[in-house]
């Protein structure tokens, strides 16, 4: 009898991963990165995320987009909001905004603190590194693989700083800065 292989499984199969095991694994990753170089932690996490983002793009396009790729910035950001976020966190809890002054900067604000920062708090008074750089890396990888080269950074939401002192957890904002070529291409394509 033929043994069933990984290729026979449904592509749309979606299994949930235990949050605890994710926390322990992620915690080990961070400890490993700290041993490498503590000052470079955010960059190392970003680099880990980038190849993941490229894979996520393939997966989303095959599973949910009927093998069609997105061509505009807005649609690409919607793909992140509507497909990537539910795929990673199982909920759609983020808001996409454009920067008020610069048109090549977009922001993804999360509504509640993400998994990376939930338990990773530094001792009081120490500098604040954001472990969500890992997610920023995933977004960057996804955008770059979709030929929307961009630089993504994760920062803590300044507006929430006051709230954080009252005992709320800090939220993260992902700043997406697209390269000029993306905007030029976008402007050209609008003419047609």
């Amino acid at each position, binding site marked *: 009898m033929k043994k069933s292989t990984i290729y026979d499984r449904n592509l749309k199969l979606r299994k949930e991963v235990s949050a605890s095991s994710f926390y322990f694994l992620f915690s080990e990753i961070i400890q490993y990165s700290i041993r490498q170089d503590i000052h470079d932690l955010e960059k190392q996490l970003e680099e880990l995320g980038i190849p993941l983002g490229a894979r996520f793009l393939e997966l989303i396009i095959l599973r949910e987009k009927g093998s069609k790729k997105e061509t505009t910035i807005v649609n690409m950001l919607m793909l992140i909001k509507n497909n990537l976020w539910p795929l990673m966190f199982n909920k759609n809890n983020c808001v996409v905004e454009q920067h008020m002054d610069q048109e090549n900067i977009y922001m993804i604000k999360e509504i509640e603190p993400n998994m990376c920062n939930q*338990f990773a708090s530094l001792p009081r008074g120490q500098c604040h590194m954001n472990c969500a750089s890992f997610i920023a890396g995933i977004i960057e990888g996804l955008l770059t693989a979709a030929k929307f080269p961009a630089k993504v950074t994760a920062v803590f939401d300044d507006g929430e700083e006051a709230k954080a002192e009252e005992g709320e957890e800090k939220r993260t904002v992902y700043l997406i800065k697209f390269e000029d070529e993306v905007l030029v291409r976008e402007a050209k394509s609008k003419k047609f």
Partner: protein
Amino acid sequence: MHYNFFIVNKIGLLIYERKFPGCAQLDSSDLIRFGATLSALHLLSAVVTPSGLKKSGLKMISSKFFKLCCFQSPTGVKFCLVSDPNTTDMEKMCKKAYQYYSDYVLKNPFYELDQQIRFEGFDREIEKLFAIKQ
């Protein structure tokens, strides 16, 4: 009403201490002594347990003036709550604190095992659990 909450690690060092409002502050050498005494008492009470009973170690000390509840995790970390004699459900609260310890401390990549606990997230949950007003 609660007086004090302590976490003592498996070698008898105090790694977390929380004083409740209206209670006298112990100085640092008292705190160290407390941690050592508590783990010694815990071991001794297991040794003097009559045969045939479960050797669970120190669980509760009650007196006219206070009640001390001690809960030990399987890895030897002790959660100890000191309250006034009329308090109930103390063990439940210690177990809840253990749950927060395993979440906010053990899953925190910046924590080194058996060291002092100084994390915002954990402090916040402990404050919520014992309803401490800032």
